[in-house]
């Protein structure tokens, strides 16, 4: 496993670094928030990102993507984390693209080019309760005519209120709690019976609740096999967790660097507060945690690209580790900023908010620790 970036990867990282710092820095998120932007991201930015190849980063070349793999995608996500950039990258370029790679030829031909070109925003409608729990899917899809009829409610659907199409997990057999019996469907949000409510979250980013009331879809809306949706979901969530971990790494590292810069400037008691050994040791501990966390992200995404059989476990472990470490970075960040860390004026609070949401998405640290134990039979 190569744990050092190769030339292409270094180039991708540097390109992403320059791009987001210029086009979508933290203040861009502030503007979206303060203007109560209805889309929740900047469509022009998303078009630019597509132009850079970011939207099609895991889409095969035959479908118009650049197919650079998940480690490269992680380098992009890391820079988005550093800049708190709002975009449909996670929902569309990662989750939906990964799902649709498991679709029929027709589905691939229809949607993957639209993803790569930035022309479609696609949302994954999975979670229902307050916590991530794929096996807990209770939304039903009953046979109806040539297709299915969907009923249920989804929450925390990222980019759900602006999606051109949604991928909905629904139960075609079994009961909530079973891994088997879940199927994935492409659902047009404009279909009869779909009610979408944008939910404004603490991080000012996109999420929605979706109610499905006798929503009819045709038989060719099915992605993957009937009742076998969990296999596709596993692949989708593995990728999503790895990329979320990469974004957490970026957000955590930036929060840390902002904090170190702050304590090098701020004076109290006639001293630069960065001179206080207690803060030095806590900073050095956090530095160590972030270095360990970086290895987890690189290792997980490399395993994913290499088709390692443990990739799923590794991405989950990386998500767990980054959830904890980035949270610590934001907590130490606010505390070391002192009073100004509590003000909206400084960015550190925005990092705390985004990190909280990211660590919750697709399973928090506790969830993955538990899954780790289950997978290792203890």
């Amino acid at each position, binding site marked *: 496993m190569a744990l050092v970036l190769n030339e292409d990867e270094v180039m991708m990282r540097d390109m992403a670094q320059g791009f987001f710092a210029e086009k979508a820095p933290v203040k861009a998120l502030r503007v979206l928030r303060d203007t109560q932007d209805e889309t929740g991201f900047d469509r022009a930015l998303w078009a630019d990102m597509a132009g850079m190849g970011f939207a099609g980063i895991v889409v095969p070349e035959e479908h118009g993507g650049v197919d650079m793999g998940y480690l490269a995608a992680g380098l992009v996500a890391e820079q988005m984390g550093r800049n708190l950039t709002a975009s449909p990258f996670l929902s569309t370029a990662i989750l939906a693209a990964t799902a649709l790679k498991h679709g029929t030829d027709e589905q691939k031909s229809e949607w993957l080019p639209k993803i790569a070109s930035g022309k479609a925003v696609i949302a994954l409608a999975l979670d229902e309760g*307050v*916590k991530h729990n794929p096996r807990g899917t209770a939304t039903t899809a009953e046979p109806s005519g040539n297709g299915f009829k969907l009923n249920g409610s989804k929450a925390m659907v990222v980019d759900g209120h602006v999606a051109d199409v949604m991928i909905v997990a629904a139960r075609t057999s079994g009961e909530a709690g079973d891994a088997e019996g879940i199927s994935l469907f492409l659902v047009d949000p404009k279909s009869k019976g779909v009610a979408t409510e944008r939910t*404004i979250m603490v991080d000012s980013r996109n999420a929605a609740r979706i109610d499905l009331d006798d929503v009819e879809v045709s038989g060719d809306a099915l992605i993957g096999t009937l009742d076998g949706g969990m296999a596709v979901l596993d692949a989708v969530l593995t990728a999503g967790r790895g990329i979320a971990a990469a974004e957490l790494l970026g957000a955590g590292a930036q929060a840390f660097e902002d904090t170190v810069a702050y304590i090098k400037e701020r004076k109290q008691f006639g001293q630069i507060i960065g001179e206080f050994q207690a803060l030095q040791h806590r900073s050095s501990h956090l530095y160590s945690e972030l270095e360990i966390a970086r290895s987890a992200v690189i290792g997980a995404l490399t395993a994913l690209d290499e088709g390692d059989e443990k990739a799923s476990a590794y991405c989950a472990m990386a998500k767990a580790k980054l959830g904890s470490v980035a949270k610590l970075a934001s907590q130490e960040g606010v505390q070391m900023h002192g009073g100004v860390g509590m003000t909206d004026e400084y960015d550190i609070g925005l990092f705390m908010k985004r990190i909280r949401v990211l660590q919750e998405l697709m399973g928090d640290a506790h969830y993955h620790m538990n899954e780790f134990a289950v997978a290792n039979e203890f």
Partner: protein
Amino acid sequence: MSDLDTFRMEARTWLEANCPAEMRTAETSDKDACWGGRNFKFKSEAQKVWLERMVAQGWTVPTWPKEYGGAGLSRKEEIVLLQEMKRINARNPLSSFGIWMLGPALLKFGNEEQKAEHLPPIARGEIRWCQGYSEPGAGSDLASLKTKAEDMGDHYIVNGQKVWTSYADEADWIFCLVRTDNTGKKHHGISFVLFDMASEGVEARPIKLISGRSPFCETFLTDVKVLKKNLLGEEHKGWSIAKYLLTHEREMIGGGNEAARPLHELAAGSLGLEDGKLADPMLRAKIAEAEIDEWAFNLTMKRKLAEAKAGASLGADSSMLKYYGTELNKRKYELMMDATGHEGLEWESDRSNDGKMARSWLRTKGNSIEGGTSEVQLNIISKHILQLPGA
């Protein structure tokens, strides 16, 4: 029947007769509190009547002398009064930094004229006070404050900037630390002055926090005239008054923030149980740990209070309580956020009561900063309790 029992029966009778029914319900939000002051608008007639009746009894400040608007009660009688108010769920008639903070300092450090001028309006809820301590360059290191008061004979001219001034935009008067001497060590040359917020040259602007709107303001002072009769205590020696008040504040913050409902009930309600156990076994472990710590911490609050009553001085242990209590509270809110998942992350909706969970969580992050950071408390413990060298 002891005197205390007699007092209890009298209080009970009076409260039953005089506390309006509407004032016997729990406050539903911070907005239900009565803060008084020139510009305060009563939320209801009952709120106004309740304040007036309590003022007439001297019970907004029960232990203050009668001449200053109090009832001259002993501490024990005050406890009885509070118990009787709690019995009928009576609301606090008047929330006031004047009562909680400035009053005790005036009683201890003020001259006769100052007490007579300022204490009765505080007791009656006529004048609302705010506190001008922190400055942009002087947070934890409060004594390095720079707001300057120039001696002009019978008055000072004050210039500078204060920050974290709670409710400065709504208060009538401010008690404020200013520098009257620059030449000595930083703890010297600080004076404690009082002035009207309506004075020319005072401007207060609210600060937006990560948790949203806040009572905190930045306060700009430009050539503000402060009469020397409004100097509390000796000139240049205001630091001892400030310290007296800080200890007061620390005790308030350390113990104040108990969530009404046990964490495990919130979590069980939100996540559900599997085989009688919280569905998230990892969270379950951390909640058990936090609740055991909370139990032991609450016992410690009681123990230190009991020791103080028995004559021991709380001293630097107030720093220990402030440190531990605020860090524990932050931990608890992190666990609440874990337990409430997606719902707890909502920021603006009726469903989430306008993001109450998320905003409360963010607000707790300030607990370990305001009133002296955790780091400052640990320094104090190192120095005054452990007596470590150079601390």
